[in-house]
């Protein structure tokens, strides 16, 4: 899932400037699961705005609305009847959702209320952890199911570096050394001979370095 953090209220206020007619737009997908931009969080942010402007004695209009997804046009299109009534759409989706809404409602101002952070998993209630960087060329079979690109601070393909200590990464005592995890897993599964293989220089074109990516599936097109 895509994980994010909500921006601080002060930053959101600053981005809104003098605009007082606001459509707070949530998304029912990833940002709902990670508790940052679903219906509940839309309600919280909208209330914060109302309370703040009430106290300031301002005139305002804040509407709450949550879409099934902000990354599919058919859902985005459903707010067309009223989207134009607002000065600004305050999107609580991930960066993809914010952009798609902005694209659909040109030239209306769309402001992000969330910082999109990573592709990850839920470790426990309220704790998420990064797992994937979408590099476009998966090698998890070689590395015991642990991604060194996403989980090693240096993305070393032939780790660990000299900073691995007690199973932790040198950059942070709460961060596991990905290569310690890889080695543990390879050892447990009797595949340590894999460690002896040198991972060659990688072709990064399948990732961000090859430019913005686009996927076309002719078999699915209508």
């Amino acid at each position, binding site marked *: 899932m895509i994980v994010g953090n909500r921006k601080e209220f002060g930053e959101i206020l600053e981005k809104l400037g003098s605009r007082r007619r606001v459509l707070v737009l949530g998304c029912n997908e990833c940002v709902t699961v990670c508790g940052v931009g679903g219906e509940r969080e839309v309600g919280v942010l909208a209330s914060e705005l109302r309370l703040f402007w009430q106290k300031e004695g301002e005139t305002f209009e804040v509407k709450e609305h949550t879409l099934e997804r902000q990354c599919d046009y058919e859902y985005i299109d459903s707010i067309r009847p009223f989207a134009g009534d607002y000065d600004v759409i305050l999107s609580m989706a991930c960066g993809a959702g914010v952009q798609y809404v902005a694209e659909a409602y040109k030239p209306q101002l769309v402001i992000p209320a969330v910082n999109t952070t990573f592709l990850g998993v839920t470790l426990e209630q309220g704790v998420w952890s990064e797992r994937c960087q979408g590099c476009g060329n998966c090698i998890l079979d070689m590395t015991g199911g642990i991604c060194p690109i996403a989980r090693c*601070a*240096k993305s070393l393909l*032939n780790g*660990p*570096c*000299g*900073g*691995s200590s007690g199973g932790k990464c040198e950059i942070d005592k709460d961060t596991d050394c990905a290569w310690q995890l890889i080695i543990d897993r390879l050892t447990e599964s009797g595949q340590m001979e894999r460690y002896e293989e040198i991972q060659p220089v990688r072709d990064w074109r399948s990732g961000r370095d090859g430019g913005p990516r686009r996927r076309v599936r002719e078999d699915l097109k209508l």
Partner: protein
Amino acid sequence: MAERPGRRSPQAGEGGLEAVKTNSRIEKLLGQGVFVVTSECGPPRGADAEVVRKKGELLRGAVDGVNVTDNQTSVVRMSSLSACVILKGMGLEPILQMVCRDRNRIALQSDLLGAAALGINNVLCLSGDHQKFGDHPQAKNVYDIDSIQLIQTVCRMRDEGKFLGGEEIKGKPALYVGAAENPFADPFEIRAARLGKKMKAGCEFIQTQCIYNLDRFRRWMEMVCERGLHEKCAVLAGVTPFKTAGMANYMKKNVPGMDVPDEMIARMKGVPKEQQAEEGVKICVETIQQLREIPGVRGIHIMAIEWEAKVPEIVKAAGLYPRPETE
């Protein structure tokens, strides 16, 4: 008393190292079985060449080669290549450190060509400290390739005359290729295997992290020798003299992958402050003497951090002076 410098190591007689490929003084001496001594010079945080020359002057004659660090601990300094050229101009033998943190394969290969063109004979391939520890933690890191892949890159350029992209190089860079290894980092059991990967990639010499825990180093060295790695890749054992008991404590607690036994800290604390520097040097010399007796160790790498003045004293006290001449 340890053997005199210039002795032939047991490995060298049996063709331990392959035919000389470069003009590297380190390569020649190791080929002759000399117990090699290298040290380190950290470039300044400014454009003053005089700082490099002063450090070079302190090391002149006392060591066979001088590592020049590449923005170590991710703090911006004069470039390693520039400082190497300054030292080379003084007649010293610089070892160009190159980290993968700041440059992609295009820039690394370009700098390798430039280094060879400027008469640099040695390169040390490193991943580099994470930028979090430096003065620009906001920076983006690169890590297009890692240290093992950098070793492969240099060897491919030198031996096959090819860039990573496959194109032919006109004028191959004749560089002697080294790397670093930390016998004290975790997981310990793969540390020799990792050196094996570096060797397989083409690494010809390695310098280790500072050694304080000799028992652990011996165990690592045994693993290295069991795999026969010491025959193809010369191991230079790293040492760093403590200036103070505080420094020893700091290194134990704050430097990742550093193994400083408690008794060593106790020994430093056991002498009055004004004698601690002397005690630190004494520990360092004793360590070198013990390291020389460990099978497979082919030399010493003295990292006297901002304390280059002490290096000749350490080399002399360890019985490794004078250094042999090469033509």
